[in-house]
């Protein structure tokens, strides 16, 4: 069975400092992995996706993620946090057979002024 584990439920950073949100995956197959962001009272917005083309994936708003098979990780990073980045972030794996999404438990990012 496929799964993702988000290692931190809450992360706090100061504005202008780097962001690291950690995600580990489990999959018997080459996975399709995604990061989604959910701002308060908003829907889920796709930040980026990995589908085996390149291990370093660039997304919107300056976010990127690196797929590391040896570490079964897909961590999300951003060089410099902005106040508007404060939100809940979900790591997601897509079931290879049915395409349904399996969500991680989410990481709430707080950005301090």
């Amino acid at each position, binding site marked *: 069975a496929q799964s993702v584990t988000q290692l931190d439920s809450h992360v706090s950073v100061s504005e202008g400092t780097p962001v690291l949100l950690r995600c580990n995956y489990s999959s018997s197959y080459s996975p*399709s992995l*995604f990061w*989604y962001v959910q701002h308060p009272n*908003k*829907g*889920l*917005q*796709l930040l980026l*996706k990995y*589908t085996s083309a390149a291990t370093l994936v660039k997304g919107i708003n300056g976010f990127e993620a690196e797929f590391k098979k040896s570490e079964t990780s897909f961590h999300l990073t951003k060089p410099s946090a902005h106040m508007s980045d404060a939100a809940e972030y*979900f790591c997601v794996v*897509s079931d290879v057979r*049915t*395409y*349904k*999404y*399996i*969500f*991680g*438990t*989410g990481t709430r990012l707080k950005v301090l002024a």
Partner: protein
Amino acid sequence: EPEVTQTPSHQVTQMGQEVILRCVPISNHLYFYWYRQILGQKVEFLVSFYNNEISEKSEIFDDQFSVERPDGSNFTLKIRSTKLEDSAMYFCASSEPFRDEQYFGPGTRLTVT
């Protein structure tokens, strides 16, 4: 840019009542999904739908739930007899055939009193 829409944005209902949540997927998409997010918990898969039938359903999707595509544009989730524990945010998503990237609607917050 095309987007998934959902109505209503917020629905309040009494326990035991029937509710219908509506979604309009992106027009050329053929795979449709419902997910739910109970407050403070992770997003959970409910059901996927393709070619006018259910492709997969989770354990949550019991006999009180049903889905329908009544016309060429709408995709609905019906809960026949709501329970307090059905209170959650319900997200609709759609995707192109054989593509694993899903596009989410803004969600319907269902409150059962």
